[in-house]
């Protein structure tokens, strides 16, 4: 039984023409994609750009001259860049044209905005009692703390809270992943429920609780509260990472002579490093950004965190020096950005699960 295929019946395809059309289509799609993405990210980027340009150029008020000039240069540059990306195929030439474009853009920026730039708005960094030196200052009464006190407090808050969350969620996640105990299912359900619960509704009971146990107006109190709120989800994430680590490498370690604890540290923990890093980054950012609980639970000026410093600066000098508020904003957001950039490589691997292939 044979089926004869009549090859001649099919018209001879013009492969070159088909390939040319496919290439064209691919390029058009890429160009469109770049265009849409660039346009879509504009509303997200402009506020940041506003904050930054005002912080380095504003004089008491917020002048948007520099912002518009920057945009006037950046937008065409971006457009030119997306056209370059799709039209030039050869890698070396692409690199050089890109470098040239960058140089031209930077040069143009320097010429157009250069005369407006100054560092006056950043003087809060070295002038410790900044609010008193401003006109009509001190709605909070008394001296403003140094920005470095607030920075230090924020750092302590974020780091201790992060450490606490990472340690507890790692141990709890491991236990939930590996051991069966009465109430395990209920615990897992409870964790999810706790995460879904809006924390704001707890402000008054937490305030009372802190008052009763004497942790009101201490960083320790805030650390404990934020860690407690952050933990359910962190535990859940860590449990997922541990679930992805096969049992047998643990069993293997134990037959190789390790105790359960040694097997955990030497063999299991290295497999969930990515998870621990993710939990750490998110916990740090949560502590760094915290506003609601520090606002309600901390009163003394020496306990201020960056968010409170920013708030009071805004309350006190708004209308007087709104460029400096922008500078503080930039200063406040900088550590988060640095952290993201440093960990980005590991965080993007996270979606692949606990163990890298």
């Amino acid at each position, binding site marked *: 039984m044979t089926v004869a295929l009549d090859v001649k019946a099919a018209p001879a395809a013009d492969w070159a023409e088909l390939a040319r059309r496919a290439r064209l289509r691919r390029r058009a799609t890429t160009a469109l994609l770049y265009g849409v993405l660039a346009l879509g990210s504009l509303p997200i980027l402009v506020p940041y750009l506003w904050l930054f340009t005002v912080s380095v150029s504003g004089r008491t008020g917020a002048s948007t001259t520099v912002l518009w000039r920057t945009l006037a240069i950046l937008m065409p540059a971006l457009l030119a860049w997306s056209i370059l990306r799709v039209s030039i195929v050869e890698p070396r030439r692409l690199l050089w044209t890109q470098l040239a474009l960058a140089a031209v853009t930077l040069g143009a920026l320097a010429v157009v905005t250069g005369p407006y730039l100054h560092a006056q708005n950043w003087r809060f960094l070295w002038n410790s009692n900044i609010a008193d030196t401003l006109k009509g200052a001190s709605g909070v009464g008394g001296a403003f703390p140094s920005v470095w006190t607030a920075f230090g407090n924020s750092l302590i808050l974020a780091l201790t809270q992060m450490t606490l969350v990472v340690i507890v969620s790692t141990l709890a996640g491991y236990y939930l992943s590996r051991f069966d105990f009465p109430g395990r299912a209920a615990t897992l359900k409870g964790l999810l429920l706790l995460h879904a619960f809006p924390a704001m509704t707890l402000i008054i009971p937490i305030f009372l609780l802190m008052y009763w146990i004497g942790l009101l107006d201490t960083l320790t109190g805030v650390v404990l509260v934020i860690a407690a709120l952050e933990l359910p989800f962190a535990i859940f994430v860590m449990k997922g990472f541990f679930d992805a680590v*096969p049992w*047998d*490498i643990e*069993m*293997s*370690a*134990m*037959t*190789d*002579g*390790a*105790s359960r604890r*040694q097997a955990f540290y*030497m*063999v299991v923990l*290295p*497999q969930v490093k990515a998870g621990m890093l993710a939990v750490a980054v998110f916990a740090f950012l949560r502590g760094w950004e915290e506003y609601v609980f520090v606002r309600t639970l901390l009163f003394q000026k020496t306990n201020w965190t960056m968010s409170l410093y920013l708030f009071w600066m805004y309350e006190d000098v708004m209308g007087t020096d709104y460029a400096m508020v922008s500078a503080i904003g930039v200063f406040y957001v900088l550590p988060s950005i640095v952290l993201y950039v440093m960990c980005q490589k590991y965080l993007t691997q996270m979606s692949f699960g606990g*163990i*890298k*292939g």
Partner: protein
Amino acid sequence: MARIELKGVAKRWGDVTAVEPTDLAIEDGEFVAILGPSGCGKSTTLFMLAGIYVPSDGQILFDGAEVNDVEARDRNVGIVFQSYALYPHMSVLDNIKFPLRFKKVGADEAERRARSAAQLVQVSELLDRRPTQLSGGQQQRVALARALVKEPKLLLLDEPLSNLDASLRLTMRSEIRGLQRKLGVTTILVTHDQVEATTMADRVICMSKGRIEQVGTAEDLYHRPGSLFVASFIGSPPINLLEGSASGRALRVGQAELALAGECGGAVVLGVRPEQITLGSGPLRGRVVDTEAHGRETFYHLDTPLGPLRALEAGAKARFAMGDALTFGLGHGLLFDPDTTRRIDGCVLESAVQ
């Protein structure tokens, strides 16, 4: 090296019984294989020996001393898991060295021993790689080196060859066998591949549903299976099993009357291996339904008065074609009790070959 003994060892999880109470002794330096279908409790048995699971019942003895409560890390057992279980974050060398970290072995000595273990399984060129950068066969060798480096009393291999391709499997089979002879370590191999079990091990333990069905040499299991399960599990193509009834020295199967050597009565199951059917001569008549060429041998499906039969004949060329009528005889045939599923001793088919 150790003599291993199991006395009434059982493992249960709630209502699930993975291993029924089992008695077994394995001699010092012996190579045994545990053979059985998926889920019959092979791995569970192995894990109990390694100390990963604690038996629900019974005693495990190493050289006559009970080790039930001895932790896995103190048993000095080398184990190769089915998945190899290499540590993904360590280089091959660190993987092999890992067990030595827990022994009082100096750094230089550990390095030397790890390298010689690597040499033994021929992975010396791969020492700096990560496990993910190795092929399945290489990973398996590394796992073997890691199990051997601590000079274990007992080597446990849980389906170590199941992930390999056919030709590599053949090579590794003889390599593992050779290594075991050289080192003289008591070894238990778990597999559901009967050829692997019978070619590698001195003795084969055939398990089914958590129970040991039979222990014996490959020859014993093939020619003198103790039960219907062993008879049908061992051998490929599988044995022909035909229901019949016996009275005295006569056996009736389907429309055929056969003679027995020895007396028995009642319902029986007759088991005949495919190669025990001689085609072309004999007192019985049948018809060829289908033929399959298997290279060195040819496999026939027959329609006979006894019922459908599978027959195997050496020779690449089929002597009979589909639809041919032929005569045939039965050589060695075994009888089983259908109620107890055990083989009936002292009663076999009288050879009907001419």
